[in-house]
């Protein structure tokens, strides 16, 4: 059985080329291009080779967190991988069939559990069976979206596209100590994904702020929440105080829930960084989004392009077009017969259109 989204043969633009070649230094030039390629390769069955991985970075080649994504992807589809070594600047990935099941991945503190999930969840949506995925490591890492973002903002939109995935944070893990754990339960999608159109947010429903402290005085979280409220106005607040052994860590998250979308913004506390400064950072981002007219912010936009392409089309508006988004669209265009267009419809608002290629 092979429950690919689209059978590979239909999709190769040039039938004589059975492998996609990617330039790892292109666009954002970091790990995103690799993760997007891994997901699409698993789903389409098309092998790929990526060269010049992170060629323009200070430490070129694969880092640990990239290897983690590669080995998770390989485990999920029984792929043949060549070049998966630290510092390697070229990698060949030949996928097998995606298999549902129980998976456990332990990654170091430098990697992020959410980036691993984002790589493999879309593949498991189309697996032959339901899956349970445990990933231990960092759940709240400044270099990746926190697990709350996936839970509050991304998964609800995915569910609207008929995805059935539950995500639970079993234990928090902050950078650099790690030690957190998340668990995702995935049921395969029945039929096709539902295309998504997200041109406006709809009506405002709620604003909410959560401050988490672990091994950090509760006073810090309290000050952060007070500052966020004073900047954004009254809202629901929650002070989550975790056992010190899950720390040290401190994060403030502000979520703005609307009729069609919920956006989440995050700032991390650091040593020698005042609680107020952390709060100002997250409140500033939330306010910019609140005052803008686009449906989603930068990070959600980055994560929507791929599911839309899998659904065969869709459209959303965003207040920021990042290199990640452009890179994603480029890689998608190499694997799937879709095209992504970005156009600025009003100042500060861009529309991203994903459409099937005209046959």
């Amino acid at each position, binding site marked *: 059985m092979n429950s690919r989204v689209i059978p590979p043969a239909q999709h190769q633009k040039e039938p004589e080329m059975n492998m996609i070649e990617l330039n790892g230094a292109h666009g954002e030039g970091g790990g995103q291009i690799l993760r997007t390629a891994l997901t699409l390769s698993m789903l389409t069955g098309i092998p790929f080779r990526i060269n010049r991985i992170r060629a323009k970075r200070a430490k070129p080649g694969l880092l*640990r967190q990239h290897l983690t994504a590669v080995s998770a992807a390989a485990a999920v589809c029984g792929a043949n991988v060549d070049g998966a070594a630290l510092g390697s600047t070229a990698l060949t990935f030949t996928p097998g069939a995606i298999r549902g099941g129980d998976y456990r991945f332990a990654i*170091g*503190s430098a990697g992020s559990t959410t980036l691993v999930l984002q790589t493999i969840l879309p593949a498991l949506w189309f697996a032959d069976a339901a899956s349970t995925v445990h990933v231990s490591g960092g759940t709240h890492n400044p270099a990746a979206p926190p697990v709350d973002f996936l839970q509050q903002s991304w998964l609800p939109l995915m569910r609207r596209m008929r995805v059935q995935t539950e995500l639970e944070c079993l234990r928090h893990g902050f950078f650099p100590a790690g030690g957190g754990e998340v668990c995702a339960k995935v049921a395969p999608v029945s039929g096709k994904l539902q295309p998504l159109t997200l041109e406006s947010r709809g009506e405002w429903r709620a604003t909410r702020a959560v401050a988490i402290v672990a091994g950090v005085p509760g006073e810090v979280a309290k000050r952060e929440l007070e500052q966020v409220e004073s900047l954004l106005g009254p809202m629901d607040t929650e002070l989550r105080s975790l056992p*010190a052994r899950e720390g040290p860590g401190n994060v403030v998250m502000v979520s703005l829930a609307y009729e069609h979308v919920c956006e989440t913004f995050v700032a991390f506390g650091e040593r020698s960084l005042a609680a107020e400064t952390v709060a100002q950072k997250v409140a500033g981002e939330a306010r910019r989004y609140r005052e803008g007219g686009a449906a989603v912010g930068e990070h959600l936009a980055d994560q929507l392009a791929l599911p839309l392409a899998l659904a065969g089309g869709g459209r959303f508006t965003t207040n920021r077009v990042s290199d990640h988004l452009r890179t994603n669209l480029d890689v998608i265009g190499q694997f799937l017969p879709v095209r992504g267009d970005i156009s600025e419809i009003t100042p500060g608002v861009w529309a991203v259109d994903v459409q099937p290629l005209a046959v």
Partner: protein
Amino acid sequence: MRKTVVIGFVGTVLDYVGKGAERWSKWRPTVCLCQQEDQIVDRLVLLHDERSRGLVSRITLDIAQVSPETTIEPREVVLQNPWDFEEVYSLLHDFAATYPFDLDNEDYLIHITTGTHVAQICWFLLAESRYLPARLIQTSPPVKRRGETLGTATIIDLDLSRYDKIAQRFAREQAETVSFLKSGIATRNAAFNRMIEEIERVAVRSKAPLLLIGPTGAGKSFLARRLYELKRQRRQLAGEFVEVNCATLRGDAAMSALFGHAKGAFTGAANERAGLLRAADGGVLFLDEIGELGLDEQAMLLKAIEEKRFFPFGSDREASSNFQLIAGTCRDLRQWVAEGKFREDLFARINLWTYQLPGLAARSEDIEPNIEFELARFAREQGEQVRFNTEARLRYLAFATTTQACWSGNFRELSASVSRMATLAESGRITTAVVDDEIERLQANWRLPGKADALAELLGDAAAELDVFDRIQLEGVLSVCRESTSLSDAGRKLFACSRKDKKQPNDADRLRKYLARFGLDWQQVSVFNQKGK
């Protein structure tokens, strides 16, 4: 996939930062080692003593959290005093000798940031001497200014050639040294350049004797002096450069000149004399034409080289001298050993770094740079800048590089030739006329007739009537005669084998009869050979 194994002490100071969540905000070298984005430690061998068991188990848990790929292998050791060099070295030496290194599948790194400075020194010594087949790795705390949070780990490879800047520095230094040995002459002969490069390496690393073989004027003495100056510059020796041509040492005087003598050792030995060997103490002794040294002197010299001790002539008190020997010769010493004229044991002792210096004719591409060198030297010594006219230079070079130019006196002769032209040059220009005269002069000097001509000169018209068979044999015989001092001497050489079977050797007679067949006698042959020389 090869595994990375790190070996190190647990840091009883740096790794010990308490048990609270705060420990994650402090820099811990051993944890930092396992947190690197660009390196995975597959196994960490953690040396610790009894008192650090608790620390090791805490660190093990923390590392499992940040680096699930890492297996910790605790090794409890007994260390009374981690600041005691002998104890630490013995401990680590034992570790190196007994650890089951699997070099086919694993790469080893020694973490030097933890442990005492004594431990650091011992790790270094063991890695450098290859007792530990490992490279060193150091961790360093995060630089906040650069936005770092974890700290970094850097591998220190003791193979210095892997570092571009260091390698460049060495290459530059070596090029300078090689150029120094060649006196800055940009020689073009590839074989010669290769040889000098090897001599450079040997010279800076070895105190063993050097043997320079080459015809007279090939630059043996010059090179020996340069080698000495090089070593002196590098502070490898403090003594003098002592040079002597063994051909000038004869009889008792030879012994005394080389090894010195005690007061009253022989008639006329009114005072004690130190001798050349002692003068070269801590320096270089260059014995040119070592083949000419008498057998007794050779025996003494061998003892002096091997034991650095010898008896001065007539003395019963041993003297000592520590010198590096450079020997020069134009002889085939191996042949001389076979003939019993050179001691085999001494030859074996000096025939370690043996270099054949080619004559100038064999290095014709180096003639031009040497002309430049000689002109520069003339300018330096005479204070007068002399140049060739273009055509004159071409004409001289054309002649100097033909096979006709045999340069029997080699570089010495070229030097003399250039000096002559420079001296005769009017207003600093060497003209074609000066060159033409010089070419004539050289041709006259080299009027070593060609072989065919030699026989013609000796035999007159009769030479043309000789069979090739006889001609070849006669030429060979004549060349042995040229190297011999008398008819008997030549005869001994020519009949060296057959004479052994005879009760009464009659080589001289055999040779006389042979020469007579061509109407020749020894007198004629030796007069002719004198002219040839």
